[in-house]
């Protein structure tokens, strides 16, 4: 229901923009929807969707696999933070696209390099969010852990992890958005499937109706991922509802 309302608002804004600009660079929504519905009949459309979904999912998993421990270690141990944070700060601002050649040389031009590129892009915001989250854990709980002689594994499982779980979901939400919106970078080479590829290719052809229907798909893919993430959060953070 609320998503219907949100979609309506976006459509209204879109119509307004299309009407104001009166230019083919912003086609009217109904034209795009017609095109989209027609293209849903083709198997190719689903391949674009699936390829992108696969790359994003793998990229996010890979990024979190490294970002969660990095952020936790940096947030928890001051001495290590003194080393980790400056490195994060120095590497975060690098324009990842400029490193495309390196990724290609190291990981080839196949899916692996695309996934790693996505992972590298979202690793940094995820690691910073998680580090900041760990730093905000109330000192009372950390004292409690010390007082009850929890082993590092238990501190992780019983204190740190549940305390930052909401942050991890928050950073998931941030990274989903980022990784979808940078798909075009990673699907810009040696790709024949993927929404990023489809969008850029349509753009190169100045085929704005096609480009916008790709964008709508991307947007819906994002919305779907967000609904999943919000749902999983409600499941695994039980106390949040109390």
């Amino acid at each position, binding site marked *: 229901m609320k998503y219907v309302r949100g979609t309506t608002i976006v459509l209204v804004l879109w119509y307004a923009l299309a009407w104001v600009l009166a230019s083919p660079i912003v086609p009217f929504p109904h034209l795009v929807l017609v095109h989209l519905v027609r293209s849903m009949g083709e198997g190719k459309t689903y391949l674009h969707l699936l390829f992108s979904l696969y790359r994003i999912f793998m990229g996010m998993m890979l990024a979190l696999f490294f970002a969660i421990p990095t952020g936790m270690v940096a947030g928890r141990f001051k001495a290590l933070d003194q080393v980790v944070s400056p490195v994060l700060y120095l590497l975060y601002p690098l324009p990842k696209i400029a490193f495309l050649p390196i990724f*290609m*040389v190291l990981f080839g*031009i196949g899916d692996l390099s695309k996934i790693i590129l996505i992972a590298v892009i979202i690793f940094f915001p995820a690691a910073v969010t998680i580090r900041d989250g760990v730093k905000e854990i109330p000192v009372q709980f950390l004292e409690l852990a010390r007082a009850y002689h929890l082993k590092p594994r238990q501190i992780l499982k019983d204190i740190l992890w549940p305390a930052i779980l909401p942050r991890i979901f928050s950073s998931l939400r941030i990274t989903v958005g980022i990784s979808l919106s940078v798909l075009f970078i990673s699907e810009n*080479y*040696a790709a024949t499937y993927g929404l990023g590829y489809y969008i850029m290719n349509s753009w*190169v052809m100045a085929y704005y109706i096609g480009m916008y229907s790709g964008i709508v798909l991307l947007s819906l893919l994002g919305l779907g991922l967000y609904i999943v993430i919000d749902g999983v959060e409600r499941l695994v953070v039980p106390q949040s509802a109390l």
Partner: protein
Amino acid sequence: NKPKTETSANTTIEESIRTEPLPTLKVGMMSAVDSAPFYHALQEGYFTQEGVDVELILFTNGQNRQTALQTGQVDGAMTDLVALITQTDSDFALTGTLSTDGDFPLLATGPLDGKKSVSAGTMEISVTNYLLEQYLAPKYEIEKVFINEIPARLEAVVSGQLDTGIFPEPFASIGALRGLEKIVFEGIPSESLNIIAFTKSAIAEKESAIRSFHIAYGRAVADLQRNPELARDVLMKVIPNLPPAVRDTMHLPEYHAPRLPSDGFTKEIIAWTGTVTGREYILEPSAMLDPRFVRQ
């Protein structure tokens, strides 16, 4: 056709008197050898002498240039036939007025001879895709890999992930500095694929300025034909970050006096573009080319 001396004399005299500024023209350029005559004309003051105040904007990214053209941020830009065709089909009223001269060698780690199938990097919706077929189709089976960003394409060839790739000059010469072999196919394509296109509104509102622009271009080409070193000099000057070694190794095209592709060639490209994009273009060359400015 006014005599040149008269025109230049008039402008210099008038400039000091009149307060009304010259009509302006913003034209997008690319870091390609095509741009030499334009920058030469600018440098020599040919544009102002012909009565137009030209601003050349150098784009590093073809897509951004195309977008600037579509949104009217520039009056015209250096583009190519394939882009012109797709744009015209998508309701972006553009008009090609002037063929420019570019050069697109292949780079390869070694000779391609003896190979049956060749993997080659190019961009999908692009003249380079067409050229690649023209160069290689007769002798090889081509396995195309689309890598839009040129430096990325270069690394794919250098690292051996691709047998070859197509690169515009002067970038091809930069790649050659990395130890790659530059392969030039003389006589292909039969006519130029690159073109200057203006927006319909620019054509309508700034016709005389555009005419002056072409005349100045013609004068610059004449200079370059007389002394090709001038082209090398101006390219070295205006394209940022060109390695000095490239100056003498880059393969310059033959610069032609203002001209446009023939209808036959244009139709061929229209048909070819259709096969790549999977769309049908019902276009007449006259819908996108305006020969008025190149007619002597």
